[in-house]
């Protein structure tokens, strides 16, 4: 599977799991796409740990230091898996994985060279030294506990947007 196929399959499977998906033609489009996804003025948590996060941080005038106070988290994640349309969020470099859990809206930036073809490829990379927390995320939080009727946004985000750069 080449890089383009991985990106296509990842986005296709993520969309099946009810994530919003966005494929950028180039890095300069990131700011425009984010402006369209995150409503202006909402409290946003954007940790500013990577170049991509730093480049967009000034887009959010109401940027908060604590994810517990945020309505949306915008962050770059560890990687993704094409096989299942899954994000891999990891507690590397001081990243708080739960920042993608508490706010109602999670916006994840994925570098295309970090999309693994299969689950095995991801685990092969982490097995020698797993981070304290590795969380695989596929679509928004969900339940069917009441009469098997799908409800979105139980304890985690009710909206998940994925941007591939």
């Amino acid at each position, binding site marked *: 599977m080449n890089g383009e196929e991985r990106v296509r399959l990842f986005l296709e499977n993520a969309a099946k799991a009810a994530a919003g998906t966005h494929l950028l033609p180039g890095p300069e489009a990131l700011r425009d796409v984010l402006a369209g996804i995150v409503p202006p003025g909402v409290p946003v948590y954007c940790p500013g740990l990577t170049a991509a996060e730093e480049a967009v941080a000034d887009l959010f005038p109401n940027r908060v230091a604590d994810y517990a106070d945020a309505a949306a988290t915008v962050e770059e994640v560890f990687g993704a898996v094409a096989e299942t349309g899954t994000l891999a969020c990891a507690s590397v470099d001081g990243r708080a994985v739960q920042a993608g859990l508490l706010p109602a809206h999670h916006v994840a930036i994925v570098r295309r060279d970090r999309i693994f073809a299969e689950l095995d490829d991801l*685990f092969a990379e982490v097995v020698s030294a797993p981070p304290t*927390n590795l969380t695989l995320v596929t*679509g928004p939080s969900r*339940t069917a*506990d009441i*009469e*098997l009727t799908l409800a979105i*946004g*139980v304890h985690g985000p009710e909206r998940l947007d994925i941007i591939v750069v």
Partner: protein
Amino acid sequence: MNLGQTTLRFRQNSVRALEDVALRAAMKQAADTFGAKRAEAFAPVSDLEALRDRASGIRDEVLADLPRHVETFVASATRAGATVHRAKDAAAAREIVAKVLSDRGAKRIVKGKSMVSEEVDLNAHLEAAGMEVFETDLGEYIIQMAGESPSHIIVPAIHKNRRQIGRLFTERLGVPYTEDPQALTRIARGALREKFLSADAGISGANFAAADTGSLVLFTNEGNGRMVTTVPPLHVAILSVEKIIPSLSDLPAFLRLLPRSATGQAITAYVSVITGPRKPGDATGAKELHIVLLDNGRTEILAGESRDILKCIRCGACMNVCPVYRTVGGHAYGWTYPGPMGLILTTLLTGMAKSHPVVDASTLCGACAEVCPVRVPLVPLILQLRRRKVREGFPDPKERRVMAWFGRAAASPGWFSLGQRLAGIFWPLVRAVGGKDVAGRLPPPARIPFRRKAH
């Protein structure tokens, strides 16, 4: 909430369940929905049989030397910074968890869904010790509020409809009545969010534990498992020893099989892989992680003829296809684990004397074994238990006498045809004396027996 084992009343429980029309409709709907979704989810998996072989092989490998894998897990988890406790039985597990919590002054506990914690009846013990325990899985939250026990291992509150849940929320949470599942879910989100943020400790189970890395793996959809394991400062995980897999790199096989078998999802919304507590430089993870490894009879099962049941990964697929489970539901089995895998585990873990009626809760149709993702030989395991039940003298003595007579008569063609003739002659009398109870259940004998037609 564990209401005490009622497995000995399996027949009475079943009769009561059969009379509950709403329950039967809900069970059937769950079973059909999951069954259909399961088939759909596996359709694109081209090498399913090879995948099942691989997963089954990994589980066999673990059981072939469980003590060694447990040792490896304990060493790896300890190296990762977790404190590992070994609990011989349910009482020991309850004591360990209670002590870890009370030593740290924990009063408010949030809990993720864990069948093992039901098995050891953990909540009641912690509550008796003065702690508040909040179930956070939506289904578990509902039944905890109602003071009931789970009826389904995947959908614990399947026996309650949306109107009952709406009324429960109004009564207990003081919110305006609604029966919209999405609105009810939002109410639970708000009520539980506050509990997560103020909790002193989180208790979770684990679907798997990787021996080579000491990692715990949790499959969830709602996000409560993530909350419980990362938000409070203390995380206590309780799991039974057979949940161990040799390596974290074995996980993909189970990631592909378990959610598809359980709910028909290609993967659950969340999979948490937790390796030790928060380390210097980390911004994620509980500050302290305690892992309670429960044996509770597993070592004994491992040494006996039923050890293959320990391959089970608790997906619930065998239940959804079981004609008995689909009809009577989970409560009838009278303990933590229902359905085909449940009747085996219940008998082995609680003893034949406390559970023998449930050994009959199978038609031996084999649908369970057909869907089992890790190839647990469920039918032979049930047959073994039935033989053991006879050996240990548990069958109803009347039933034994009748079957002994029938066995002798059926072994001789002469006696058998005499019996057939007598049955035809005496049928009017049987019907007159036995009334509707007998004649309504037994078919009348054929005028010309099948074996004579066959000639």
